[in-house]
């Protein structure tokens, strides 16, 4: 029974279906609301249990005629809702969150700082970048997990109710049990739905697939997967189940080539699967992930991410036939979802790098490169077991997560340049007095060392203050949106009888994203040179320039911008200074305990918030006007000259990126190309990136002409995918401002 993928028909069918989203589920929501009202306010954990019951029993399920996977539960989600779920988004998955929204404590705290662009704080905790352990479910099945939870529940009930802790444990276990039941029931319902569809179906090929779904869905993921097809069904279904019911984003789909290969190998050996059929299945899985998105909306971006390459728990390199199948799909289709997270190391074979380079050179911008040699060590340094670190995944933009970890990343962005301005102008940009921090005024220091020491001290106080508040918000997380289904996929949660939101996972990390480090370094360095070393300006004069946004002092602004060395340029003194700043920020951005028994880890993300944060950001000492863009990820400023790919690699060498387990992203704009020679260049860049000790790398491959044409004639360029920052989107869906920014970047390096 070989699966033949009818791509055209699937595209039509899925588009027709998803176009009808969002479905109206107000009756079910009203039912839940009424039950909640009558209960007099049960805990969020009980609310989640009710959600699972309602979704699994009452929501319609959709089976496609031309797709062998089953997962679509009509919960009222919007089509483009997979990314983040705070503030709560439409659909039953967020019903629990919705009843507790807004969170006044969070809104009150962030408002004054968001207003001044000191921080970007949309989410209380990470509602986007999680990984449900689909590998565990695939091997074990929900039935076995359910049995273990039932046992634990029995134990807990036996132990009695004396302690408050027990009641929390009991509620958690009951909800997790309900989650497993929902998963099992939904599988049966998908099975029945295909049986129903079979009644009127005459197309023989379709019948064959529907029969396959009918026979599989009632068993998988209830029981362990036995074949390649079942394994795919299991990992896909489990993630989608979480996406539908947990009121959170699960960006990370899984490390597919590592976990699927044993099934592939077995099936092929037994003659139950051909390479062609396996390719068809992978192709279909990639396209259904993409089909769930519509890319016409302005906000469109990707979130689902597939991890390939890297190594297994023992450190053996992963590059197998399944890796090739996945890469083939990405070469074949220009999708923007899922994104491909490519784990690479110095010992990965040439053939692997070549295929990845081919995707990069084709301008398939839904691609992130992760350096194993740096990231594994970074997580190991953060105190995690080496075998666990080797199994890291990543997704969303590039947020790394171990398979037994519940992290909270990329939800709070700190604007470093604006925080520096806040130290120089504490009255106008107050954070310190509100948070009762005694500011060490850097501008009063006699030497640059004194200045720098105070800056770093204040940044660390800023981070501590934020951590204090967010540790409270992390506690609220468990109070408004626990995730017992997600928890059920995590062995540690069952062992500890504790939800992920309370710290049930083996590892529980939190990281704040430091934004604008390039601008920050340049500004510090300009002050060092011009005020403390060359003494061309006094501190008071420098502050006057910044306060007035260089009004009437264009010559000074340009001097600061053009005549002072910049981060990223080939300048030894600057390189060593930059290395120091990266290290100091990492030290102070990590190590604080969070509310879930884990620790803070350093990260340098940008997403597109480097662009959002700029508006009220004051002028900076590097000659940047107020309101202009700050730097992206760990890149130099866009205005810095003489940054080619080689110089960018050079600049990575002076920085110890093993300080950043939460990721530090480099962005490299490359002109688009369609010939083999250029693929070579990309191979070399991949090698150089690993060799120079970079952490994560995103390419943006486009040519200027194409972008200019696309801006003029969007209709003919709907498929042109560009990377905005961490995410890829159709160029034509971007605002004019963002379009111009992408064009500008391309012109510099093209």
């Amino acid at each position: 029974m070989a699966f033949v993928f009818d791509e055209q028909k699937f595209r039509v069918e899925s588009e027709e279906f998803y176009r009808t989203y969002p479905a109206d589920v107000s009756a079910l929501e009203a039912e839940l609301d009424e039950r909640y009202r009558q209960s007099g306010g049960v805990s969020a954990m009980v609310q989640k249990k009710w959600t699972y019951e309602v979704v699994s029993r009452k929501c319609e399920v959709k089976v496609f005629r031309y797709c062998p996977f089953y997962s679509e539960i009509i919960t009222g989600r919007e089509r483009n809702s997979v990314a983040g779920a705070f503030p709560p988004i439409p659909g039953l998955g967020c019903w629990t969150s919705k009843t507790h929204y807004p969170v006044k404590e969070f809104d009150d705290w962030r408002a004054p700082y968001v207003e001044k662009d000191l921080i970007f704080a949309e989410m209380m905790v990470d509602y986007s970048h999680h990984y449900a352990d689909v590998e565990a479910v695939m091997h074990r099945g929900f039935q076995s997990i359910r049995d273990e939870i039932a046992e634990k529940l029995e134990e807990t009930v036996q132990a009695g109710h004396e302690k408050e802790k027990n009641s929390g444990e009991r509620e958690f276990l009951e909800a997790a049990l309900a989650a497993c039941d929902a998963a099992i029931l939904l599988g049966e319902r998908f099975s029945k739905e295909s049986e129903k569809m079979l009644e009127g179906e005459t197309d023989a090929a379709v019948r064959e697939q529907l029969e396959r779904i009918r026979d599989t869905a009632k068993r998988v993921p209830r029981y362990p997967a036995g074949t390649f097809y079942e394994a795919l069904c299991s990992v896909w279904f489990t993630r989608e189940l979480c996406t539908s019911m947990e009121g959170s984003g699960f960006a990370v789909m899984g490390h597919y080539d590592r976990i699927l290969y044993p099934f592939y190998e077995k099936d092929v050996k037994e003659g139950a699967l051909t390479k062609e059929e396996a390719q068809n299945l992978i192709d279909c899985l990639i396209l259904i992930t993409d089909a769930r998105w519509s890319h016409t909306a302005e906000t469109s971006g990707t979130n689902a991410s597939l991890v390939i390459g890297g190594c297994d728990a023992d450190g053996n390199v992963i590059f197998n036939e399944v890796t090739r199948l996945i890469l083939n799909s990405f070469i074949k289709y220009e999708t923007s979802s899922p994104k491909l997270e490519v784990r690479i190391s110095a010992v990965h074979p040439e053939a692997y790098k070549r295929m990845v380079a081919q995707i990069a050179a084709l301008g398939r911008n839904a691609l992130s490169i992760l350096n194993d040699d740096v990231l594994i060590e970074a997580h190991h340094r953060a105190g995690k077991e080496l075998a666990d670190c080797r199994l890291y995944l990543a997704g969303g933009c590039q947020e790394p997560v171990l398979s037994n970890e519940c992290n909270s990343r990329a939800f709070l962005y700190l604007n470093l340049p604006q925080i520096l301005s806040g130290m120089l102008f504490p009255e106008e940009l107050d954070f310190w007095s509100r948070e009762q921090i005694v500011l060490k005024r850097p501008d009063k220091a006699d030497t640059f060392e004194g200045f720098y020491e105070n800056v770093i001290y204040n940044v660390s106080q800023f981070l501590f203050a934020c951590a204090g508040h967010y540790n409270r918000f992390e506690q609220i997380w468990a109070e408004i949106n626990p995730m017992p289904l997600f928890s059920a996929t995590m062995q540690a949660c069952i062992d500890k009888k504790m939800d992920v939101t309370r710290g049930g996972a083996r590892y529980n990390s939190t990281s704040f994203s430091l934004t604008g480090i390039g601008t920050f370094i340049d500004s510090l360095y300009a002050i060092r040179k011009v005020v403390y070393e060359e003494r061309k300006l006094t501190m008071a004069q420098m502050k006057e320039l910044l306060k007035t946004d260089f009004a009437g002092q264009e010559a000074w602004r340009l001097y600061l911008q053009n005549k002072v060395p910049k981060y990223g340029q080939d300048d030894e003194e600057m390189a060593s200074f930059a290395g120091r700043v990266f290290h100091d920020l990492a030290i102070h951005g990590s190590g604080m305990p969070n509310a879930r028994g884990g620790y803070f880890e350093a990260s340098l993300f940008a997403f597109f918030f480097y662009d959002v944060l700029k508006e009220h950001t004051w002028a900076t000492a590097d000659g940047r006007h107020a309101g202009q863009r700050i730097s992206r990820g760990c890149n130099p400023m866009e205005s810095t000259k003489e940054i080619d790919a080689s110089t960018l690699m050079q600049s990575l060498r002076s920085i110890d990126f093993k300080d950043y387990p939460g990721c530090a992203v480099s962005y490299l704009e490359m002109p688009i190309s369609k010939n083999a020679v250029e693929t070579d260049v990309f191979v070399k860049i991949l090698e150089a990136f690993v060799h120079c000790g970079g952490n994560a790398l995103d390419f943006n491959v486009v040519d200027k002409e194409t972008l200019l044409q696309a801006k003029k004639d969007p209709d003919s360029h709907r498929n042109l995918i560009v990377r905005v920052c961490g995410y890829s989107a159709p160029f034509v869906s971007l605002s004019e401002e963002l379009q111009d920014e992408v064009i500008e970047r391309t012109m510099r390096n093209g």
Partner: protein
Amino acid sequence: MKLSSEPCGMAETAFITNIQHFSLHDGPGIRTTVFFKGCNLHCAWCHNPETVSLKGQVGFDAGRCIGCGTCGEVCPTQLHKIKKTLQEIEVTNYGKIESFRDKEAGRHEWIREGCLACGRCVEACPANALELYGRHVALSEIEKECMRDKENFPGFGGVTFSGGECLLQARQVFCLASKMKTGGIHVCVDTALHLPWDKIEGVLPVTDLFLVDMKAGLSDTHKKYVGMPNDRICENLKRLTHVADCWIRIPVVHGVNDTKEEVGAMLKILGGMGGHLKKIQLLTYHTLGESKYRSLGLDMSRFEKPDMKRQEWMLEEFRRTGVCVEWN
């Protein structure tokens, strides 16, 4: 000239305009290209006009100038002037100079003749509106920068000496190339071969690949557009292809060297080459050098580029040589 018998003094300098990293079009792989200043040919379509003159030059980009007058303060020959304009006086009377970029503060006027190309104004100009073309850089410094990318790229392609005509500074090329060879770095020499043979011979032992520019097939055409007949070039090329690996690079300019006669003449020349001719690269004429002409105060001659049909035809014609041909 017996280059190889003389010791290399790395304290010597070379006269260069630029060192470009991550160059993808100057030989195989990712390369670092050193542009030497000075050329003995004058191709009408030259896209690196700043490398032609043997003297240092200062370029000026009026679009960047904010009229601050810093250049005038440091110029030893007092060639920079800021013209006060009526508009400026009006604006300053109201005390509202918002931005110099809007030219409120005056216009830069500059007498190019008499410029010593000392570079002081370039260093002082905050707006980077002035640029110095031509620096005497110590060979040791050039060497260091050329070696850099070998450290960054495990698959680094090598170093290319280009220009201008880099072999007008054959001794410097030899010294640098020797160092590169010692460091295991692949060396390309990009030359037009309009030189006495001994200059070419001198760098033979330290060069892996010659990139030879061919401008035209007929000597008359060559003389008309390049300023010299091509007899010596052809002779050197023939000799060179017998002893060293070569790529021939032809900038294709419509109406100049893409005619039937021209292509025929070039093919005839190529017919008599030695076995070391490895590749022929056809390059489309472009006008990317325009801003450099403007900054030097020079007029750029305009040509057309060949259309796709002609490109295909030329590719086919050149393939008849049996050598690998690519359009780059």
